[in-house]
């Protein structure tokens, strides 16, 4: 199980020196599949590495640096677009970590630009972005209605010239999810980075990462999300975090994220039975980069929808998706 090997190396970089060529190839394949290859590169910098490994890690770091640069440029462009309507730009996840120079951003792959704006400003934000060159990714009536009615974000938009996506959120969980985070509090406590960007407060960053991973997903990419959480937890007072999580109705999720991060990447933690199931799902990746334990993966996919939606809606949503050929990969 190479995901387990990857986790071990991230926790204990010295252990990498015992690997043979086959072990390395498996480690690198798993790290690429989990989008942790550049994080791995940072983590094992300066170690004794066999011939052929260094250039692969260098490539990964270069890619991550370029992604960070591009992500910050997208944030700059979005800030420029929103400056006209007086909405401040709160960036989330990868872009926020890169902008704030956090350890969690080191080597992190950054995809879309995720931003958080007040719900009342959504329409103005939508218009301002469209005026600045963003457009809808797809004209699909069902998805559109679904997004607007039930999701915590606008349907994804893409910039016509730069080909980069933006996700505009007004809160951090779908409206159908049971926990109801206090979006106004998230925005009120946001902290400035530089002269045109804001991020969530350090505690809220952890809470958002935990909510995203455990209350709103099928755990795809979970090892990376958990690495984010592990890094974000560093400079945080855990009891302050606990109080803050309770306010957002996410105490159980945050506590579980803490246990899993400590168990996999830190000094260890006592796990519950459900934690162990999640851990097994997180580690379901072999040395060819393939997902193993298909049933468990599928169960997590189903659960991720159940987490967000009442059962009748779930049936309708899955059926609509499947008819169109979507399947969990």
């Amino acid at each position, binding site marked *: 199980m190479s995901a387990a090997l990857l986790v071990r190396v991230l926790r204990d970089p010295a252990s990498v020196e015992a690997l043979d060529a086959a072990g390395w190839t498996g480690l690198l394949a798993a790290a690429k599949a989990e989008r942790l290859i550049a994080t791995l590169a940072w983590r094992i910098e300066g170690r004794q590495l066999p011939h052929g490994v260094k250039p692969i890690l260098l490539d990964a770091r270069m890619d991550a640096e*370029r992604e960070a640069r591009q992500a910050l440029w997208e944030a700059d462009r979005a800030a420029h677009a929103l400056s006209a309507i007086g909405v401040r730009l709160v960036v989330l996840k990868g872009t926020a970590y890169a902008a704030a120079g956090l350890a969690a951003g080191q080597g992190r792959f950054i995809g879309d630009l995720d931003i958080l704006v007040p719900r009342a400003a959504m329409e103005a934000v939508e218009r301002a972005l469209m005026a600045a060159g963003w457009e809808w990714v797809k004209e699909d009536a069902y998805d559109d209605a679904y997004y607007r009615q039930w999701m915590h974000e606008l349907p994804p938009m893409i910039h016509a010239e730069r080909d980069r996506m933006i996700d505009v959120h007004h809160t951090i969980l779908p409206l159908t999810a049971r926990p109801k985070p206090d979006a106004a509090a998230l925005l009120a406590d946001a902290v400035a980075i530089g002269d045109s960007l804001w991020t969530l407060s350090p505690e809220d960053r952890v809470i958002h990462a935990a909510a995203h991973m455990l209350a709103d997903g099928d755990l795809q990419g979970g090892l990376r999300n958990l690495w984010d959480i592990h890094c974000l937890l560093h400079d945080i007072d855990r009891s302050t975090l606990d109080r803050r999580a309770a306010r957002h109705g996410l105490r159980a999720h945050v506590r579980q994220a803490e246990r899993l991060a400590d168990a996999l990447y830190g000094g260890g933690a006592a796990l519950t039975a459900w934690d162990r199931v999640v851990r097994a799902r997180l580690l379901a990746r072999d040395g060819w980069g393939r997902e193993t334990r298909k049933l468990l993966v599928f169960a997590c996919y189903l659960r991720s929808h159940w987490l967000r939606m009442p059962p009748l809606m779930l049936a309708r949503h899955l059926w609509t998706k499947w008819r169109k050929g979507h399947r969990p990969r």
Partner: protein
Amino acid sequence: MRHGLTLRIGPATFRIGSAWRTPIEALARLYAAYPDGGGTVADFTVRLQPTSTLRRWVRPSIFITGDHGLADAAPMSLAHGLLAAEMGMNLQMALGWRRHLLLHASSVEKDGRALVMTGESGSGKSTLAALLGERGWRLMGDEFALLDLDSGAILPFPRLVSLKNQAIGVVADAVAPDRLGPLLRATAKGDIRHMVPRADAVARMSEGAMPALLLFPRFGHEAALRPVGQGEAFMRLTQASTNYVALGEPGFAALTRFVTGVPACAIDFPTGDAAFEMVGRLWEGGA
């Protein structure tokens, strides 16, 4: 994966895994003269896996993926397994290679200088390179040319030459049968037959050459020749590169150096012989 093989082609090492034996056997035969990649850490992993568990046995259907994959890649039949493996390796290079500027171009070398040819598929660039490779030039690659970011040299990527449709008859006549793979009929790109490059192309696969001429060939037209300006060459090469954007500033530096230093020409040609004559004239004429 049940079956596997590690191959080194030019500067890149691939680990190819397959749920079936036959694609790996075909690769092993055609890549027998290449350096053994066993025991090394692979740059890329390629996976040929069933589209579903059932599809491993019943009307076997290959899903091509690996470190880099396309979610919507069309599945291929097991009869085209060799092509699937080649496409899997191409996919890794196109999406993942960062150590050189990767140009979708063929290249050949003579007297230590490289001729680079780029164009859409069907332009004749691959066939032209394959034929020149049998006529006194060293084939460096029929699909990808690697532009070194520091030295400005073109480095070889001499994978199997992929002959398509009419090119199969034209080239296959000129080479020994043991250098040819099986004829793959009715693939998504028509009929395809793979050809092993000449021994010197494989033996010298780490040896680059400074580019001396850039051609934009176009097969099937009246013979015509037109110099191409640096701006047009730059634009067409960015379109022909899969990693220009990913490389950032070093990619910009390498590509501008290339277009300001290498003369470029568009050539239309009706037949192979006409192309040889035009290439020869341009090459001698101070390319």
